[in-house]
């Protein structure tokens, strides 16, 4: 099989700016803000995780980067810079040209994300034909090659299958093959292993890690599973009620969280390596987006709360080298878990 050169129409990027820079991003509906003032950078080749519970705004943040917000939800402010140029202000045509060859996305549910009436090989070949200008035959060969790279056994035969003929794990590999077919520099993953069994999850996480290491692709990985973040990412942003409340290297954040919410999440999650530890749930539940008060959104559930927390929103500030936390009382929980 001939190896097809995929990077022929590369956009040249300024190496001095981060690959992706999200600045003060706000997302909401007409009546309420769902994500407020979210900022983070992703360097080329970096693996960055976003964790949070349902309704924290983690998936919307990811979808805003991909330009795939649901109807009725829109970006209300801020910038999303890819290689220094703002995705939100560039022309729709230019932005679309970036989606695929530069930025690609892997969704949670491969059954709903794949076209049910199109052979999977053709679906993978679609991107390379459009963006890399490959001919029909070349693109089909590339699709088979991509399927082989994502560990699909017997790729030439499987390329002719329809999505329903494949298992969940294979479908997720097809989606990953589709996402990486044009050699993107940034891969957005929205809970890519949540629908998979645990043995298959491990295979898919390893595959993502290998692809990213081999090609230097950066990863933004959204999940609710702390252990999966630990396995996949080097850095993590913790989101709560539409805000990033803590950020830093995964190992440091998990060992010594500096925000009470992160601490609560870690204490409530079962840790396989420490079976005797008691699980401590976080009291209460997340605030409704419509009636968030003026103070810290976590204040009503927080064990460290003061009057100050109820009236003022703590900014995301540096609390240690490489560590950010949005908490007035962060010094009081500086001790390790």
């Amino acid at each position, binding site marked *: 099989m001939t190896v097809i050169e995929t990077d022929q129409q590369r956009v040249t990027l300024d190496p001095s700016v981060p690959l992706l820079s999200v600045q003060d991003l706000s997302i909401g509906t007409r009546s309420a803000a769902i994500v407020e003032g979210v900022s983070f950078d992703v360097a080329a080749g970096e693996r960055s995780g976003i964790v949070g*519970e*349902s309704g924290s705004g983690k998936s919307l943040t990811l979808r805003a980067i991909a330009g795939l917000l649901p109807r009725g939800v829109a970006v209300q402010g801020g910038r999303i810079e890819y290689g220094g140029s703002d995705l939100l202000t560039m022309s729709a045509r230019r932005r679309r040209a970036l989606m695929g060859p530069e930025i690609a996305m892997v969704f949670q549910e491969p059954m709903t994300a794949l076209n049910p009436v199109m052979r999977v090989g053709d679906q993978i070949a679609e991107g390379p034909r459009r963006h890399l200008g490959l001919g029909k035959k070349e693109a089909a060969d590339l699709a088979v090659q991509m399927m082989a790279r994502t560990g699909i*056994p017997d790729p030439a035969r499987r390329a002719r299958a329809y999505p329903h003929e494949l*298992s*969940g*794990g*294979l479908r997720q590999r097809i989606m990953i093959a589709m996402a990486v077919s044009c050699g993107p520099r940034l891969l957005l993953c929205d809970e890519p292993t949540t629908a998979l*069994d*645990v*043995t*298959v*999850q*491990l*295979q898919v*996480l*390893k595959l993502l890690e290998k692809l990213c290491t081999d090609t230097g692709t950066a990863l933004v990985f959204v999940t*609710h*599973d*702390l*252990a*999966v973040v*630990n*396995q996949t990412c080097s850095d993590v942003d913790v989101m709560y009620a539409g805000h990033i409340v803590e950020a830093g290297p*995964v*190992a440091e954040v*998990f*060992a010594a969280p500096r925000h009470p919410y992160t601490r*609560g*999440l*870690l204490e*409530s*999650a*079962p*840790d*396989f*390596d420490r*079976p005797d530890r008691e*699980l*401590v*749930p*976080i009291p209460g*539940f997340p605030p409704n987006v419509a009636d968030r008060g003026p103070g810290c959104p976590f204040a009503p559930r927080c064990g460290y709360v003061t009057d100050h927390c109820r009236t003022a929103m703590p900014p995301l500030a540096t609390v240690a080298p490489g560590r950010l936390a949005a908490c007035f009382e962060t010094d009081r929980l500086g001790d*390790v*878990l």
Partner: protein
Amino acid sequence: MTTTEKAPALQVEGLTKSYSLGTSWLSKVLRRGSSTLTALDGVDLELRRGEVLALVGESGSGKSTLAKILVGSTGPTSGTVQHDGVVAGKRDRESSRRVQMVFQDPYSSLNPRLTVGAVLAELLRLHDVVPRSEVRAESIRLLGLVGMEADVLDAYPSQFSGGQRQRLAIARALAVRPDVLIADEPVSALDVSVQATILELFARLRAELGLSVLFIAHNLAVVQHLADRVAVMYLGRIVEVAPTAELFSSPRHPYTRALIDSIPRMTAGSVNDEFELDGEPPSPYDVPSGCRFHPRCPLADDGCRSTDPALLTIGPARLSACLKADELATIPLPDTTATELPR
């Protein structure tokens, strides 16, 4: 002690369930392959009184089919289910009262048009659990059991969060005073911070009411926290049964070992891949010959390809369906504490 008191709460023997798929005349003429799906293929299992038994396995292994048969919403193709040593026959009011179920998704398992009070009252009246005049008091007691206040009686399910709905679903299951609770992935739809409260509730109910719980889950870290014993299913069979701590410290079936090695860990670098499995579970339409796990098993040899191993006792309270159970015991689990971060 009478014999019925000693008998396990539920005992399953030789249970099979197969679904034959619509064979069209064309398939018959062309003699296309097998059209029978074997969901359960000879399951033996006992749920002891007052224990939490976890049932783990990948999707398609038959966990939910087994649960459905145990609550009586479908019948087995062959085999028996015994309640307290008595073979359960046709589904009657008494046997359906004894075994209750809590479902995975608390959003679809509660009637959105009935208030919490109406849901509970319906059951209490139908099963004559308490005299009519005491239905309200009993409903309040049930809500108290799951940690909710009396003022939710007039609310609709849509007014509650996922965790609260799961509490309501548990209160509903408890309304008819069951002996056995079958929980099919009851926390997997919940957020982490809420999950812990529901696990705590199961542990408390078991202690306070002496319930026997069959807890179906795929998250092994959750199972490790709650269960007394664990049964591992693979492709319609139970392949290993052991007390929880022993199962996780010395698995005696290679599939269990692979499951343990696949668990994403919270501690940096503690994952290992010695037992990483290739491929995915084979199709239940076409179960491999010999040991059903052999195509994915790193230890498989010719014996495994030809002999279908039975679930045998391999030690006190331990069962394994593996010809190489003894060999596996000599392969140590990786030491995860060595790479652990200072905490």
